[in-house]
Every structure is written in structure tokens, then in C-alpha cells.
């Protein structure tokens, strides 16, 4: 069904990916994408191999972005790693981070639970309990919002429009940053769209893949795909506002799994900034913006760059009067999902992000814009600035009118 065959033989051994891997740059024990991905895959196809080096891969996809031959290097790594971990003891931290959705769902059921857990995580960090399960006590961890996006959405009065879209918030926005989801809704409303949500959707599965839980990820993919099929049949576009969810739903599903409709759904899923930028192309974007007198830096998430759509946030934000934004172009932030939250990866993650942090400090800005939730966490922690989603600026510009 998927025409994207995971074929290591596409590799010509040119080494371009090695030069672009941010982890290989800072970790000299890591053999790098070419060897751990396609080169080892050929051996793995003959007989199972353990490669301890695979543990270093952050699934950031810079290898895929640089490869001239279309080798799905990072996915080869993720598959091989899951296989390697199969049947071995699961570290508690890895399990927890792969299953963030379970925690979020649990907390959402009890009023006040989120703040207690946030406090608990803070305490756990200070008591070193997180380190004991493999989660870094030095890493910024996402805190849980007191009211989930889905709950806030229910009490929001929307204007009704003929044009409808379905918003897929993903775990980060639903449980941790619902305010971004609400801005997505407001911005779409300002453009004449009515927003639907579907609470049947589950986690895209990206954290599960990284944690080696391919079977569970496949279940999520099956479930989401059948729901997406339904919305596509109705002719409603699906909107995401997390670039890792977007990448997973559109690309990694096709690389990893086989469910009817995945490829067609990939054509029907839009990142919110891409959606706005496309409206602008057709001169249909509501550009009735007020002044936003601010200067910020933009960090392009690797998982956005991997999608081949350019940087639509820059296209849209450059339309706002008074507002100035420049692309940091300083590479990977180092967080890559939950990679930088692992106790034994925190230091690597900060080293990878150093170029970006320096660039931010040099620019002297107070706020950085980025489309990815974990990039924002890392930037906030590493460069001590406020980090926001581009749609929040758009919402601010509408509100300023």
C-alpha cells in the first residue's frame, strides 16, 4: 500500500548524512547515520545484530533531510532499535515518556490533579527520583494544564461557518499547552472556518516509536487512520499544530505501517501555518492585522524541515505590521521529542542546542517562535527566553485590531 519502501540499498555511501547528523557531531561514540542506518540494515537483514550505538539516535531526521537518495535513515534506526530492545527489560523512564498520553488522560479525569502532578514532578526532580527512572532532573519537563484543550474547546462559543476543518491537537497541545489550541481555533474562526474536534483521536504514536513500542504505535496508527479516512470522506481538511505529530501522521505512518488510506490522508493533513500560508497564496487570508511591535527570532523544527514545505510560519508572520522576525538557521535544538529529557541524553541534547542558544543570546531577543512543543521547552530552558508558537503571534495580531 505504501509506495515508500524502506530500502537500505538506495544508499550510495556518500556520507552526506554523517556530516549533517547533530548527534554524531557532539558524540564521538556514535557511529552516525550511514553506519547505524543503511549500512547495518544490510547486515541486519541477514542476521539480527545488536548495535549499542543505535541508542544515541534522536530521530531528529537531519540525516533524512540531507540524504540525496531518499534513504529513510532515521526510520531504519527506529525499527532496528525497537527490535534490539524487544524482550529486554524496559527502563521505567523510557516507558513513561513513550506513554505521556496515558498520564495526561488520567490527570484530566481528576480536577486539580494536574497541579499536584506538576508539583510532584518538581519534587521528584529535586529529590532525584526522576533520575532514578532515567528522566533527567535537569531537563525542562512539560507541565500539565489544569484544563485540557478539549475541555476548553467545549466551552468556547464558535461562529458557525460552511467551511469546516478538523483540528488534531495532539498530546502536547491537549494536555500541556491548550492555549495554543485555542489560538488555532480563534485564528481559523477569523478566517471563516468552523473548527471541529474528534475526541476519538489518539496520540499520533511518535513517542511510542522512539520508545520502541512499535506494536502500540501501529494500533494508534490504525485508529487514527480510520478516523482520518472518515473526515476525508466528508471533505474536511485535518489541521495539526505540532510538527512532530504532522510528520508522524503524514510520513512515518507510511514508512512504518500499512493501513488503508494513510497516503490519501497525508494529502489531507495541513500544518496550521501551512494552511494559513496557502490561504494567503490564494489571497484569502484575513490580513486585517493590528500592529505587533516586536522583534523575534524563528527556530525551524527539524520535523518541519523534513516535510518539504519550507517555513510557512515565516511567510505568514512577515505579513504582520510592526513585527520583525528572522530565521535563526542554527540547526537542531537538541531536544528531539523526549530525547533531551532522558537522564543519559540531557548533556548531549544541550551540546547539540548550543549553536541555537548562542544565536539567540547574540540576537538579544526576548522571545523565540517555533512550531514544535519540545523545541519550545528546550529553547526556554537553554536560552532563557520565552518560546511561543507562531499561531499565537497571529492571534495576537488579530486581537490588536
Amino acid at each position: 500500500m505504501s509506495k515508500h519502501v524502506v530500502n537500505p540499498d538506495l544508499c550510495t555511501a556518500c556520507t552526506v548524512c554523517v556530516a549533517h547528523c547533530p548527534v554524531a557531531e557532539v558524540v564521538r561514540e556514535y557511529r552516525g547515520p550511514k553506519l547505524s542506518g543503511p549500512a547495518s540494515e544490510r547486515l541486519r537483514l541477514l542476521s539480527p545484530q545488536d548495535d549499542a550505538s543505535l541508542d544515541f539516535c534522536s530521530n531528529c531526521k537531519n540525516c533524512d533531510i540531507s540524504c540525496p537518495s531518499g534513504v529513510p535513515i532515521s526510520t531504519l534506526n527506529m525499527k532496528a532499535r525497537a527490535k534490539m530492545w524487544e524482550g529486554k527489560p524496559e527502563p521505567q523512564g523510557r516507558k513513561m515518556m513513550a506513554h505521556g498520553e496515558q498520564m495526561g488522560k488520567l490527570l484530566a479525569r481528576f480536577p486539580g490533579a494536574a497541579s499536584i502532578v506538576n508539583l510532584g514532578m518538581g519534587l521528584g526532580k529535586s529529590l532525584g527520583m526522576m533520575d532514578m527512572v532515567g528522566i533527567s532532573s535537569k531537563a525542562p519537563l512539560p507541565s500539565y494544564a489544569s484544563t485540557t484543550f478539549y475541555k476548553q474547546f467545549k466551552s468556547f462559543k464558535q461562529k458557525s461557518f460552511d467551511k469546516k476543518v478538523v483540528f488534531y491537537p495532539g498530546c502536547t497541545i491537549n494536555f500541556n499547552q491548550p492555549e495554543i489550541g485555542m489560538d488555532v481555533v480563534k485564528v481559523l474562526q477569523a478566517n471563516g472556518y468552523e473548527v471541529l474536534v474528534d475526541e476519538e483521536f489518539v496520540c499520533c504514536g511518535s513517542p511510542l516509536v522512539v520508545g520502541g513500542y512499535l506494536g502500540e504505535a501501529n494500533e494508534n496508527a490504525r485508529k487514527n487512520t480510520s478516523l482520518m479516512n472518515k473526515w476525508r470522506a466528508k471533505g474536511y481538511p485535518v489541521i495539526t499544530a505540532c510538527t512532530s505529530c504532522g510528520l508522524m501522521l503524514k510520513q512515518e505512518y507510511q514508512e512504518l505501517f500499512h493501513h488503508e488510506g494513510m497516503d490519501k490522508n497525508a494529502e489531507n493533513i495541513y500544518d496550521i501555518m501551512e494552511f494559513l500560508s496557502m490561504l494567503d497564496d490564494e489571497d484569502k487570508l484575513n490580513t486585517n492585522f493590528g500592529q505587533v511591535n516586536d522583534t523575534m527570532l524563528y527556530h525551524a523544527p527539524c520535523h518541519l524541515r523534513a516535510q518539504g514545505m519550507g517555513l510557512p510560519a515565516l511567510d505568514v508572520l512577515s505579513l504582520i505590521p510592526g513585527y520583525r522576525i528572522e530565521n535563526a538557521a542554527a540547526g537542531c535544538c537538541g531536544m528531539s521529542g523526549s530525547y533531551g529529557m532522558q537522564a543519559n541524553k540531557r548533556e548531549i541534547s544541550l551540546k547539540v542546542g548550543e549553536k541555537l542558544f548562542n544565536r539567540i543570546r547574540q540576537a538579544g531577543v526576548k522571545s523565540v517562535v517555533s512550531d514544535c512543543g519540545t523545541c519550545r521547552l528546550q529553547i526556554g530552558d537553554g536560552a532563557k527566553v520565552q518560546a511561543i508558537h507562531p499561531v499565537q503571534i497571529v492571534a495576537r495580531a488579530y486581537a490588536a485590531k
Partner: protein
Amino acid sequence: MKKSDVVVIGGGLSGLFAAAVAAQNGKKVTVLSYGAGSLTIGGGIVDIMGYADGNVPFATPIEGVKNAPEGHPYTFIGEDTVKEAVEAFKKMASAEGYAYQGSLDEMQWIPTAVGTLKPTALVPRTMDVAKMEAAKKLVVVDLAGLKDFSAPMAAKNLGLLFPNKTIETVKVPELEKSGRDMTAFDTARLLDRADIRTMFAAALKSKAGKDVCFIVPPILGTHASYVAFDDITKQVGAPLVECAAVAPSVTGIRLRELMLSILRKQGVVFIEKANVCGNIVENGKVVAVTTKDFGRQRTYRADEFVLASGGFYGAGITADQENVKEVVFDLPIVAPARVEDWTNAKMFSDAKQPFAMIGIAVNEQLQPVDAEGAVIYPNVRVVGRNLAGYDFCFEKSGNGVALTSAYKAASLIVKGGKA
């Protein structure tokens, strides 16, 4: 994406330079690139024309351009344009703080990793061969743990080339513990750090002195700046000359950084992982190209298009048993009729490889033409390794053809038509 003035397909040197020249002249440019281009492996040294048929070196690069064989891209790029392009490139690089040296009137014979010499035209300051030629003693740096470079072998071969010079090696201990083989690029990354530079310079200092020149692999920093190079040179107190080496290519990575930085300043839109695979034609003109990978097809509209997709090596031209195909516009390919005739049986002979000459036929405006010479799309220009009729590897002309054809294409676009 809103319509651009120019869409460039390919992010190798020819695409990046065409974009820079067009943008510098006020054009709104979008670059679509799938993969990082061959600069990462190919090298940032600009060969113009090194060897004539029969492996005879040209006296100067411009001699090579003037005497390019029939059908060679230089014959329709033209000598004047080659000169302008070289000047434009040097000016651009110098304005960014990473000046290139060399000219069309002097062949630079730079050392390779195995201690032979290869002819080229423009090099970064880290490869100032005059320093090597002037020295009485060459000291080859032997860095522990570095792969793809044998200092004793390089020293031995340099000894054969320069019988009147004293040749030595100097051992440098491993700069940092490593769990894998260190490439020149890994080492260059270490030397981006001031503390490592001090260590490195200290190891060389004992052999420094009057009339000494150090020969090093390309490791003197990864950035398009001379900060690392100048710092090390100052600390050592004697000149260092980098040699050309294998992939990943440090000089190529520096040049790529330089070009990308220029493009950013000029507001060029650079789209990564954009797999261009189709086009839209209206009234005989291309109005858009399309990309497709995992999601939707995306459309990029423009008035003018530059096809810089790298030919066979860059995947702009693909081949299977029956078909050779240009992937974006399905342009005709000039190739020997029988696949068996593609390779010269003597792989390392002193003749060009027919398969290397395979490419797209163009007219003097770099527009693609059919077998009868008729223009296929007037607003498409073909540049770099896409062009038919030259073997960059044999004659040493790769980045030269890339830069000069890109300059010509961009200039034609800026001038709005014919040269």
C-alpha cells in the same frame, strides 16, 4: 507559495550561485532542494579546467577555457562570461569574510591527501600553495586517529615532487578521545574550538621555524571564516597549507555555509526536502514545477526556472536498463545510443568516460534544445553537472562549470532574455 521571479531546482553549487546572483540583482528567488547537494562530499575548491585530452595539463585555467573541445559547456558559456563569473564569485566570498584566491591566469597545483598535486583555479586562503612552494622544509602533520590520511605516504610522495626540499612529519597526539574513526571533518569540528586549537598548535610549534611550511589535511575549522585558520597560523608561527581530501569534504561544507548565508541575507527562500518531479506548461512556457513526497503535491510558480539538479551524480538524471530520464521536465538526454558504450573499458585510462559526458543539450542561452536544435522551453536554463559534453572528473572542471553556467543563467534572467 506565492509566485517567485525565479525558481531554482537543486541546492548544489550551481543552484546556490545562480540563486545568489539573481537575488543580488533584485529577483525574488526560491530554491527547491532534495538533499544537501554534492558540496558536502565534492569539495569547495574551484577547478576551472585542468587537463586536456590525453591528460596534458593546461598552462592556465583560461587556456583550458579557450581550448575547450567542441560541445563543451565553456564553448557556449563564453570566455568573457567565465571571467565575469569568477570575479562575481570572488567578490561575493570576500564580502562574507571567506575570500577565495587564485585567478584564471595561474594554475594552482594543490597537494592532495596522498602527496600528489592536482591543478585547480580558486582556493580558500587555507590552501595558499605559494607558501608551500616558497618553503625549504615541508612538515606533514601526522594526526593520531585520523583516517583517510597517511602522513608518511604523503611525505614520501611530496619528497619525489620536491627533491630540493626537506620533508618531515610531525606527530600530533589524538586531540580528543573518540569512539569511532576520526574523519578530517570530525577533526575540523574539534579545531573550531579555541582550547583544541591551542593544543594542536603547541604540538606543531617544535617544528616551526624560518622557511618551514606545514602540510595538513583539511581540518582548520568547518566554518566559512578564517578565524580558526588565522588563530592556528599565528600560534604556530609558520604557514599551514591544507591539502585536498576525501568526503565528507571540509572545504565543500565551508563553501555551502558561505552560500547559504549569502542566500539568507538576500531573502532567498530555501526549501529543503523538496522533491521536484513535475511541471506545468502553458502556451509553450513552464509556469510552475511541482513537488511530491509523502503528502500533497505542491506547486511552485515562477517566470523563470533554473535546472540545477546535478545530472547523474546529483539524481537530476536517472537511468534504468532502457531509459535515461531527466526527472523534472523530461528533457532529452544526449547519451551514447548503446549502454555498452557508456564506459571506457580502460577505467583509469587517460581518456574521458562517455557516461560522464551524458547530459542535457542546450543552446547559447542555456535553454534546453531538442535533436534539431529547437528550444524546448524558453524560460528554463540548464546549469552545472546537468550539462552534456564534459567529464568534470577527468578534466578537473566541476565547480568551474557549475559557477560559470550558473552565473550565465542568472545574468540572462536578470537582463530579461538574450545575452
